[in-house]
C-alpha cells in the first residue's frame, strides 16, 4: 500500500500538466465512442469518420437541413437545375479554396466522383449510385453537368453524401485529408486523438470553435464522466443509464429504427396470420422508459418521421395477446406448424440493452404460443443472417436489426429492406417491387405519395416485418457550450454549429 502511495505522490510531483482542463475559451474537446481507422473524405458516410470530417474538413455540394425545415440547402453548389434526360447542372460557389490553397473548380468535383467509383479504392459512398451510371461533363470552372442513367430524381440529395477533394488527390486512401471546410486536421495520433484547427481562409462564415480535439472512449460511462469532470465538452452517444444530468444531457431522435426482419420463406412465417400474431404479441409500450430510453417512439415505418413520404396515418400494431393467440390458432387450424422453432437473432452491442430487448421479445412471443428462442451473435455473424444469401436449411429466423436513415429519403431503405432483390429483404411481393421502382423514378409529391402507399402496404396488408421503435440518442454537452444535438449527430457533428455561452 505504501508503495502505491509513494508512486502516486511521485507521479503527482512529476506532472506539470493537470487534466486537459485549461483550454482557451474557443477550444473544445469531443469524446467519441469509436476511433477512426481512416480519415478519408470518400468514407465520410461511415458514421465514425463522418462525425469528424463531414462539413468540418470536407464539404459536399448540397446539404440536408436537419435543424429547421428547409430541406436540401446549397453548400459548395450555389444552385442546381434539372436539365431533363437525367442530367443535372450544378453551379459551384465561386472563390472557394481548399486548405492546400488551390481553388475549387468543376474538375475537382469530377475527380471526387472518379475516386468514389474507382476500383483502386473501396469508397463507401459508391453504394448510393449502385445501379446508376454517372457521367460528368465540365462546362466551365464553376459549372458541371451530371448525367445519370437511368435518371435519378434525387441526385441533388445524393450529392449531400459525396465529399469534394482536390483533383490532385491520389487514387488511394489518404491520411491528410484536404477539403474546403472550415477546419483542417492539424494532428492525428492513432489511438489517441485527432485535432482540427480553424482555417483563416475559409470561404464561409468563421465558426466560433477555434480548435477541436477528438478523443475516443468506448465506455459510455467514461464518456459521460469526462464531460462531468471537465475533460471533454461534448460526448455524443452516451446511454440513457449514464445520462443522469438534466442540465447537460440531451436526448433527441437519432434516425435509428429498430425492427424485426421477418423472412417469409420459412415456416411458419409465410403465413400472414402468424406475422400478424407476432406483431400483436409485442407490447411495445412496455419497453419505453424501462429498457429503452424515455422519448423512444413506436415505429410505423422503417425510416424516421423526418423522411419524405412519412405516412402519418399509420398506427403501430396494437398489443393484443388474445388476438395473437386466435390468429395462431387459426393458422394452426389451416395446417401451419406454429410450433416450429423460431430463432430471434440479435446482435450484441447493436444498441443499448439490446440483450434485454431480445429477452423480453422472446418472452412475449412465447406467451402467445410461439416456440421462440434468443440467439445473441456478434456483428459478423449477424450479418450472415441479416443479408442474403440466407443459409439453406435454416429454421425460422427473425432478425432484430437497427436501421439508420438520416438522408431524408426512404429510397435505399425501401429497396434494401423490401424489394425482392433487396439484400436484407424478407419480402417477395410484386406490388412492393412496383411501388419502389415507381417511387424511385419520380420526384416531389408524387414520390412522397408513393412512399406513403408503400409504407401502408407493407405494414397493414402484407405485414412484412415487425416495426418496433424509433430510437433516441443521448449526448452530454458541457455547460459552457451552446449546442443542441440533432438527428444528424450520429452521422456528423458540424463544429460550426457549436457556439459558446
Amino acid at each position, binding site marked *: 500500500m505504501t508503495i502505491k502511495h509513494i508512486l502516486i505522490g511521485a507521479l503527482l510531483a512529476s506532472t506539470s500538466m*493537470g487534466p*486537459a482542463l485549461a483550454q482557451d475559451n474557443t477550444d473544445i474537446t469531443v469524446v467519441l465512442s469509436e476511433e477512426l*481507422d*481512416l480519415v478519408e473524405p470518400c468514407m465520410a458516410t461511415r458514421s465514425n469518420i463522418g462525425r469528424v470530417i463531414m462539413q468540418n474538413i470536407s464539404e459536399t455540394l448540397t446539404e440536408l437541413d436537419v435543424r429547421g425545415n428547409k430541406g436540401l440547402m446549397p453548400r459548395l453548389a450555389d444552385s442546381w437545375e434539372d436539365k431533363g434526360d437525367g442530367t443535372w447542372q450544378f453551379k459551384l460557389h465561386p472563390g472557394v479554396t481548399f486548405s492546400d490553397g488551390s481553388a475549387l473548380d468543376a474538375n475537382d468535383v469530377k475527380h471526387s466522383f472518379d475516386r468514389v467509383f474507382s476500383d483502386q479504392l473501396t469508397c463507401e459512398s459508391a*453504394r448510393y449510385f449502385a445501379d446508376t451510371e454517372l457521367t460528368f461533363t465540365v462546362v466551365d470552372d464553376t459549372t458541371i453537368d451530371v448525367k445519370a442513367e437511368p435518371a435519378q430524381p434525387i441526385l441533388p440529395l445524393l450529392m449531400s453524401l459525396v465529399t469534394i477533394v482536390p483533383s490532385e488527390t491520389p487514387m488511394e486512401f489518404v491520411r491528410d485529408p484536404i477539403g474546403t471546410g472550415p477546419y483542417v486536421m492539424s494532428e492525428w495520433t492513432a489511438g489517441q486523438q485527432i485535432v482540427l484547427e480553424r482555417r483563416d481562409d475559409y470561404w464561409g462564415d468563421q465558426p466560433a470553435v477555434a480548435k477541436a480535439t477528438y478523443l475516443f472512449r468506448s465506455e459510455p460511462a467514461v464518456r459521460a464522466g469526462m464531460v462531468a469532470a471537465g475533460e471533454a465538452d461534448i460526448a455524443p452517444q452516451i446511454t440513457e443509464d449514464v445520462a443522469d444530468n438534466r442540465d447537460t444531457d440531451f436526448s433527441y431522435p437519432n434516425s435509428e429504427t429498430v425492427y424485426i426482419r421477418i423472412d417469409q420463406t420459412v415456416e411458419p412465417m409465410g403465413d400472414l396470420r402468424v406475422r400478424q400474431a407476432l406483431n400483436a404479441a409485442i407490447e411495445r409500450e412496455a419497453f419505453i422508459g424501462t429498457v429503452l430510453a424515455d422519448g423512444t417512439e413506436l415505429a410505423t415505418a422503417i425510416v424516421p418521421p423526418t423522411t419524405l413520404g412519412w405516412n402519418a396515418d399509420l398506427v403501430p400494431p396494437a398489443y393484443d395477446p388474445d388476438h395473437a393467440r386466435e390468429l395462431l390458432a387459426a393458422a394452426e387450424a389451416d395446417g401451419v406448424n406454429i410450433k416450429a422453432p423460431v430463432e430471434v437473432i440479435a446482435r450484441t452491442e447493436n444498441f443499448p440493452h439490446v440483450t434485454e430487448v431480445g429477452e423480453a421479445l422472446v418472452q412475449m412471443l412465447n406467451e402467445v404460443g410461439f416456440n421462440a428462442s434468443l440467439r445473441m451473435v*456478434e456483428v459478423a455473424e449477424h450479418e450472415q443472417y441479416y*443479408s442474403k444469401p440466407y443459409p439453406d436449411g435454416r429454421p425460422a429466423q427473425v432478425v432484430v436489426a437497427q436501421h439508420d436513415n438520416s438522408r431524408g429519403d426512404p429510397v435505399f431503405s425501401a429497396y434494401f429492406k423490401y424489394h425482392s432483390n433487396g*439484400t436484407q429483404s424478407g419480402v417477395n411481393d410484386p406490388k412492393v417491387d412496383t411501388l419502389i421502382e415507381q417511387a424511385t423514378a419520380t420526384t416531389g409529391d408524387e414520390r412522397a405519395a408513393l412512399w406513403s402507399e408503400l409504407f401502408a402496404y407493407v405494414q397493414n396488408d402484407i405485414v412484412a416485418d415487425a416495426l418496433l421503435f424509433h430510437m433516441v440518442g443521448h449526448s452530454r454537452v458541457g455547460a459552457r457550450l451552446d449546442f443542441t444535438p440533432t438527428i444528424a449527430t450520429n452521422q456528423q457533428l458540424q463544429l460550426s454549429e457549436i457556439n459558446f455561452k
Partner: protein
Amino acid sequence: MIKLIGQRAIASLLSLLGLMVLVFFLSRLTGDPAVLFLPIDATEAMKANFRALHGLDAPLFEQFGRYVWDLLQFDFGQSLRKARPAIDVVMEAYAWTLPLALITLSLVVVAAIVLGSLAAFKIGGFFDRMVSIISLIGASAPDFWVAIVAIVVFSINLGWLPTSGVGTPLHWVLPIAVLFIRPFGLIVQVVRGSMLSALSAAYVKTARAKGVKNLPIIFVHTLRNAMLPVITVIGDQAAAMLNGAVIVETIFGFPGIGKLMIDSILQRDFNVVLAAIMVTAVAIFIMNMLIDIAYGLLDPRIRH
C-alpha cells in the same frame, strides 16, 4: 550461453511458424472482411472490388503463399481497416502496451514479494490472514467492474485523477492500479507458499546461528532461494500482460495492443491480427529467455 539462446531461438521460430499457420487459416474461417468493412447495403460489385484489392479473392493457399513470401521480405501486409502497413499499426500500439506491462509488472513483483514474504514470516498471523484474504478477493474481482468503479470514485466523484487517456503520468495511475490487482493476488500467494518452505530450510538456521537479523534473513537469505517458482508465475503473468490488457485498455482508452487486437479480430483485419500475434509472440519469447537467464542469475546451481 550463446548456443543456448540460439537453440531456443530456433525452437521458438518453429513455434512462431506454427502459430502463423494456425492463425492464418483459423482467422480466415471467421468470415469475410468485406462484409464488415463495407456498409450493410454495399453492392456485390463493391464487395468483389474490395476482395480483389486486398487479394482476398484468391484461393486460400495462394493467399497464404503470398503472405509468407511478403513476410520473408519483412512485409506484414496492409491493414484492411486503416490502409497502413499492419506492422506500423502494431508497433505503435505496442509502444504503449510495453511500458504499461513493465511498470505494472515491476510494481506487482515488488509489492507481492515484500508482502508475501512478510506474511510467510509470521504465518497464520493477522497480517498473513489479511494479505491472503485481500489478495484472494482481488484475484477474483472482475476487472471491468473495478475499472469503472475506480473511474466513478477517483475521477468523477473525487476528481483526483483523469478518467482516461494517456496524456500525463497521472493518466497511467488508474490503469496500472486496476491491472495490478489480479496478478498481485496470484503472485503474493505463490511468494507466500514458496517462502514458507524456504524459511524452514537448514541455511536459515545457520543464518540465525550467525546472528543475522530477521530482515536480512527474510529478504537476503531466504527470498532468493524462494524465487524460482515465483519467477515461473511472474513469467506466466508477464506473458498475459504482453498480450495486452484488453479490458483495461478498452475502458481507459489506452491505445495498446489489447484493444487493437480485439478490434482487429472483430473487424477481421487479418494482417493486423497476424502481425500483432507475431510481435507479442516474439515479446513473450524474449521474456521467456530472460526468465531462463533470471533462473541462472538467481541460482548458481542452474548456471553451472
